[in-house]
């Protein structure tokens, strides 16, 4: 029995007569202290998968279990970090984190709670913005605040639902390092959802692709056998990285093609329409010198 497990899980929506399968025959087992990345296209049901793991949603068929017990409801031990931050906008960053701490450690005094809050906020380097409201923060800072709140729950499993998808490249790599750093210093189980192959290879121990929906399922995973810490600067030169990356990318692209073929049962015959020619008449003397000007630089 593994640490966190999904066994033959189905999730579907809608009335019985018109059911839409979101996930089908999902099997996933995550070992303790393992870093698993789930990779998939948008709309394939990644967030639903995360909701299953966190207990926010229960499977229609099959079972989800954590430490051998069925997951019946969400709880702080399954620390979920939401895709759209989910910070409470009327509370400051500090108060958002304190709300979580107060919940998980109800016996602490006010001063202790404050100290603990500062510890978690410092962990994501947000200590300068403790008293700021979420709307005063940038997207990356909100994401970090959300991460800090999730960490403050002291969860046994960290469930990260596309934590970095809304960030620009620079902030993204910074936050990747932070997450890795936290994970390495303070080992715990992580399941992360992403749509970025590089990110998955850089961070995870194992990468599990999710096939295209509807009725998406997890296919066989790729184990990342690369030593840690992984340096993002030299990574590109490592043959193992290149191999994994191309393999996964090829697999994902194949999925895409497959699903397209699946969907292309109904063929629509397109009308034979030719584009009209709107190009300028070259013979007009007024434009001729302009055109020559555009083309000429190569000759210089």
């Amino acid at each position, binding site marked *: 029995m593994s640490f966190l497990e999904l066994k033959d899980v189905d999730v579907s929506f809608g009335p019985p007569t018109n059911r839409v399968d979101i996930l089908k025959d999902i099997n996933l087992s995550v070992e303790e202290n393992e870093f698993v990345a789930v990779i998939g296209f948008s709309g394939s049901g990644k967030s639903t998968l995360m909701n299953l793991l*966190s207990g*926010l949603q229960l499977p229609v068929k099959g079972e989800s279990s954590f430490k051998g017990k069925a997951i019946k*409801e*969400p*709880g*702080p031990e*399954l*620390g*979920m970090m*939401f895709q*759209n931050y*989910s910070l*409470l*906008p*009327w*509370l400051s960053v500090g108060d958002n984190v304190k*709300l*979580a701490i107060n*919940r*998980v450690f109800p016996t602490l005094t006010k001063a202790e709670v404050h100290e603990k809050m500062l510890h978690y906020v410092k962990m994501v380097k947000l200590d300068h913005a403790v008293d700021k*409201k*979420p*709307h005063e923060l940038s997207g990356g800072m909100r994401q970090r605040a959300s991460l800090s709140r999730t960490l403050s*729950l002291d969860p046994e499993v960290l469930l990260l639902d596309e934590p970095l998808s809304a960030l620009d490249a620079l902030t993204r790599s910074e936050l990747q390092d932070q997450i890795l750093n936290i994970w390495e210093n303070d080992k715990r189980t992580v399941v992360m959802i992403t749509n970025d192959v590089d990110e998955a290879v850089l961070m995870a121990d194992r990468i599990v692709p999710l096939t295209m929906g509807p009725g998406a399922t997890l296919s066989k995973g790729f184990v990342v056998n690369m030593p840690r810490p992984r340096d993002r600067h030299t990574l590109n030169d490592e043959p193992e990285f290149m191999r994994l990356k191309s393999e996964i990318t090829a697999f994902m692209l194949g999925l895409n093609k497959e699903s397209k073929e699946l969907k292309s049962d109904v063929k629509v015959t397109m009308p034979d329409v030719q584009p009209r020619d709107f190009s300028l008449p070259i013979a007009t003397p007024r434009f001729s010198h302009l055109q020559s000007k555009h083309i000429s630089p190569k000759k210089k």
Partner: protein
Amino acid sequence: MVLNFVTMKKIKYSLLKTIDITGLTFLDPVVRLCYGEEPQVQLKKIGQWIIVPLIAVFVALFVIYDGFIVDTFKTKSGKLPTSSKIYSSYQAIDQLHDDELAKEKAYNLSGEEREVELKAVEEKISSVAKALELAGQAVASQQEVTKASIASKVAPIQAEYEALKESIKVAATARAEELELFSQSMTPGDESAAEKLLELVRADDAQDTLDREKRNLIKEKISVTLGEKSLDLEEIKAEETYFSERLAFLKTYKTLLSTENKSLIIDEKKGRISAYEQELTTLTGADALKKAKSIVKQESVISKKEESEYAGSKTIWYQVKRSVLCVFTGFFLGSFLAIPIGIFCGLNKTFMAMMTPFIAIFKPVSPIVWLPIILILVMGAFPNPDKHPFMEFLGELPLIGVYKINPAFIASAITVALCSLWATMANTALGVASIDKDHMNVARVLKLGFFARLFKIIIPSSLPLIFAGLRISLGVGWMVLIAAELLSSSEGIGKFVFDEFNNGGSDSLAKMVVVVFIVGIIGLILDRIMVIFQRLVSFEGAPATI
């Protein structure tokens, strides 16, 4: 110097922020202009948001209203009041308030202060009396002048009238004679002659009617001329009225300083008691008992008098304060019901379905229907309000005790509550029902209990909408209250209007128009207060106001 600049900037931004929160955005360009920020843009904005509205008010009030409307409409008690008359009625209402305050002070004055004040008042009375006499003389002489001028105007018309009357009489007699002659010259059986006579009589009748109309026309002209009012006379008369009113006030003021003064009356009673006590020592038997009883009676009278307060008439500002107290009482009462019910409606669809018929049916009911029902219920609950312990408790409360809460007040407040709570209820339900699902997921992950969920997530998240509802409720409540007070004759602005309506004095209409402005301005202030609260509880991405 640099520090100064920084503080100036700080002041500027805090000013601009205050303006933004209070919604007084028209002040924004003024502040910016004071700091020399893009003067041309700011001047344009000032023109648009301050000058243009002022011009609109000016035009509406002094050009359209004073110029056209006042002359066009006539009421039973004369023309509509002009804007200057409305303003002077406002001053009169305000003066009445000051007078009442002065009277109350006079009633409670004692010792040397009282004597000094009494002397001052006597001097004032004599000077005002003199002024009144002068004004009276001026009125008399002006009346003579007016009379003469009117008489001179009427005389030619009267002469014309007499002449017309005479000529009509002559003509009528002539026609009568003619008819007489014709009728006698008729031979029986002559059909054409009979017809001719009939025609002549008809013509005579028509002529009579015509003449009568002519006469009435001139008569009316005479009565209009007689009824013409001289503006000078009006002015002098107003002055006379003013002085006579002042004199009446000063006279009451004087009695309150002398014969009706609290300390004087008490002193007098005390003197009587000491006299009685001396007499008592010389008496025995039934006489002594009687004396002792009357001493005790006097003592109780004194203690009552010492507690007594000046009982004057209620002035507008007292009524305004009582109305505001009443609207807030009703508003809090309504909100106290509406917010919890709204929260449960938002949380539970079944509960919402349960409440829907009640909301749908009671929401459109007019305050005019609620009030009599509530009044009967409240009166039933307090059959003897003066002796009821709850009413006595309210009467002894600090700050509120002055406003003498009675069943009419409570009924008005409950009516306000019943009419205003719907907006809050609907908005609260909407706010709770439309909580961001992510926020609820956070609550689930944190495993928050019901109350923690309620106070940490649900209420903070729906506060902006709740306050939007409260704002609407307070506005509705203020409108409803005036009607409720008018109906229940609970002391307040509504009662003031109704009293003026029943008075039917020459300035009643003007006073009611003053009330229109007072009610409007207070309503505006209440609304602004709620806007500030609403802004303070709002957060980024809060659900929009409805």
